[in-house]
């Protein structure tokens, strides 16, 4: 069957309605909208957790304090350069305030919450006819909650409240995406975007935390070690799920194994890879059945690798380089996706 035949109405689903291929630009915007929302979710979670952890133990571990704030920047690749150095000057309290503000409202920081939500909304705005009214209204309201006239005042009153609001708002967006959008091409692109973004951020978050806790100059008291690993789980929204599976066990190896290899939990890397691969396969099937593209190949291999991996393998290769490989493979997959679908 040639392409033009397919387009002229033979490619119909059970409902008899033609399965229209979506615009490349729309697919691209779907993908990025979803990535930015996911990024905002992760950032707001990290900001909530970091503030709350340091309120508890900040006084006990003054050296760690600044490093934790540096890690907030590091997870988003913002820790190098003059701006970062400037932000880390002054008292701990000043650093905390500055970084929180930078990560919340700073217009020059594309990874600030406002920056992410602005990009998510701009993408959504350019494809409004392809997303549901509920998704749009939710994202738009969320955007105005940070952009509106009273945002600064509410932030001054309680930054935590703002972060929780963004966290809930972004999670609501995911729920609405699942429940109000047909699970066709558009939805599949949002799923690939979300999974790739999440696995990238989870990789970075694990890497930053484990590097920090291994540093000899940090002198972490073994009594407190658990708290730091628990907070890593919290940063990845995984603490409760982890606890239920690993009762009473806060060994670093178990935590890492959970975040990297747990099959059943949506925040784990393996889950994300599986989900991204699954969505990529289904996109292909919708658009051109019985064929395979480069993104499917790359994700399929990575998926299989993680499926059969064990903790020993991570130890042999070294956690940091293991995570690095996953990230770079995911980047290749994203690039292949772009070439296959977004560049027509």
């Amino acid at each position, binding site marked *: 069957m040639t392409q033009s035949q*397919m*387009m002229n109405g033979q490619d119909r689903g059970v409902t008899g309605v033609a399965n229209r291929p979506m*615009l490349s630009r729309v697919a691209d915007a779907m993908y990025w909208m979803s990535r930015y929302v996911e990024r905002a979710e992760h950032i707001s979670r990290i900001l909530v957790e970091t503030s709350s952890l340091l309120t508890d133990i900040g006084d006990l571990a003054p050296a760690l304090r600044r490093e934790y704030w540096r890690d907030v920047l590091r997870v988003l690749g913002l820790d190098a350069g003059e701006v970062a150095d400037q932000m880390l000057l002054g008292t701990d309290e000043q650093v905390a305030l500055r970084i929180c503000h930078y990560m919340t409202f700073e217009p020059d920081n594309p990874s600030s919450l406002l920056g992410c939500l602005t990009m998510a909304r701009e993408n959504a705005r350019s*494809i409004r*006819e392809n997303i549901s009214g509920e998704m*749009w209204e939710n994202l738009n309201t969320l955007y105005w909650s940070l952009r509106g006239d009273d945002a600064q005042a509410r932030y001054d009153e309680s930054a935590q409240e703002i972060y929780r609001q963004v966290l809930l708002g972004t999670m609501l967006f995911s729920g609405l995406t699942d429940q109000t959008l047909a699970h066709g091409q558009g939805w599949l692109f949002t799923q690939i975007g979300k999974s790739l973004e999440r696995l990238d951020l989870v990789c970075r978050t694990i890497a930053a935390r484990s590097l920090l806790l291994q540093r000899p100059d940090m002198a972490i008291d073994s009594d407190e070690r658990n708290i730091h690993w628990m907070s890593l789980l919290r940063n990845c929204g995984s603490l409760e799920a982890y606890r239920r599976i690993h009762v009473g066990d806060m060994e670093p190896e178990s935590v890492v194994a959970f975040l990297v290899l747990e099959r059943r939990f949506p925040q784990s890397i393996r889950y994300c890879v599986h989900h991204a691969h699954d969505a990529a396969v289904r996109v292909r099937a919708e*658009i051109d059945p019985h064929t395979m593209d480069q993104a499917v190949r790359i994700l399929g291999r990575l998926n299989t690798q993680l499926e059969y991996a064990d903790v020993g393998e991570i130890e042999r290769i070294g956690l940091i380089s293991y995570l690095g490989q996953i990230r770079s493979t995911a980047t290749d997959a994203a690039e292949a996706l772009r070439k296959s679908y977004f560049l027509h």
Partner: protein
Amino acid sequence: MFSEYHLNGIFDEMFEAAGQPRGHYRSVHTRLAAMGSDAFQRRRRMADLSFKNQGITFTVYSDTTGVEKIFPFDLIPRIVPSSEWETIEKGLSQRLMALNAFCRDVYHEQRILREKIIPAELIYSAKMFRREMLGLQVPRDIYIHICGTDLIRDKSGQYLVLEDNGRTPSGVSYVLENRAVMKRVFPALFGAYRVRAIEDYPHNLLHCLQNVAPQAWEDPTVVVLTPGIYNSAYFEHSFLARQMGVELVEGRDLIVENNSVYMRTVAGLRRVDVIYRRLDDDFLDPLTFRPDSTLGVPGLMNAYRCGNVALVNAVGTGVADDKAIYPYVPDMIRFYLGEEPILNNVPTYLCSRESDRRYVLEHLHELVVKSTNESGGYGMLMGHQASAAERAKFAEMIKEDPRNFIAQPIVELSQHPSLIDDRFEGRRIDLRPYLLSFGDKVVVMPGGLTRVALRRGSLVVNSSQGGGSKDTWVLEEDGDGSGTMHPDFVAEGVTV
């Protein structure tokens, strides 16, 4: 809240005399008069928030960031009785039939020029006249598929046509959203009225677009072409695409190959049959029109010329809504349809006519002067409010390029109560109904966009000049709204 309401000596839509509402307004008036200012303000805030959360905004670029504003919404509905509407509907249909016949004629036989009903030089000097369209066959001979005609009412309450917007009239999305919001925040006000539904407009629009598909596909592909998200009417482009369930495309999503138009999809190229373009002629195709435009599609005009794609509205319809050609519309109606115009024009002086020009220059202080090719309230002089210096500037401009100006006596637009701060005051309004042409018939949306000049004393209703809008109710039958509630309407009232 009506206690200090003034009729201002002009036609008032709600009151026939002080304290005496017209029959069709009686029920709304009773409810409004019984309402406290607080209750009203609360509803206003609800409506504003609803517009904002739904992103029903337009963008004003005053600085680098661009400010998103909501189009001010005035909660008091404008009501048009059915008998009045019947005349409007007939008059508008008649006008659009004539305008389409005129476009067809101008780009083919030019009978109306040869019979000297319209001076040929007026056509050839029209900025929007497109030589490229001469002899080009457009599907079903329809040029203006979608028209948004501006109506005003004079002191006596007579409806007059102010202008025919036959290029890419906008605002219809506000009409639909205004109604939806009104039902949400003010369901009680609908009370006993039987208001004609307008929700089928997108459906009719889609049929109107499919109607001109070049080949008789079972399922032609229709798209809406937008300049992009930075266009001030972007909301509307997206809204209409969504309501019709078709793709919203930008120029870069389309490509012309072998004189056919395709869109770039994740599965490769896909044929496009009909383009509802919300882009001016100038930007459509850099190979034919402005070469510096990146908004359009190179080669689009060739595909159009080959009859492989339909453009809606057709290219070159601007010649019919040139303000210097507007005075001839009544003649067009007589010439093409052999009928007398049902709706009158506003008397108009053509500055290109010597006698008219002399009169205009002598009476600038009591005329409105308009540039023939501007819209949106730009390039305009309100003679009675302008300073001597502004009048002198326009006098110079008129002498320099008379073809580019017309003048009209200042029409005292009708007024309608608006909520201003905490009470009702009269504000000037107009009405833009939306028409769809199917060739042999015209479908008029019952209602339209009622725009309000929210500044006291202002006669300019454009949104760029501080205007707002109202929901417009066309009644199923004449009456005072004391009948029973329409069952369909009750059901619709809860699903917004």
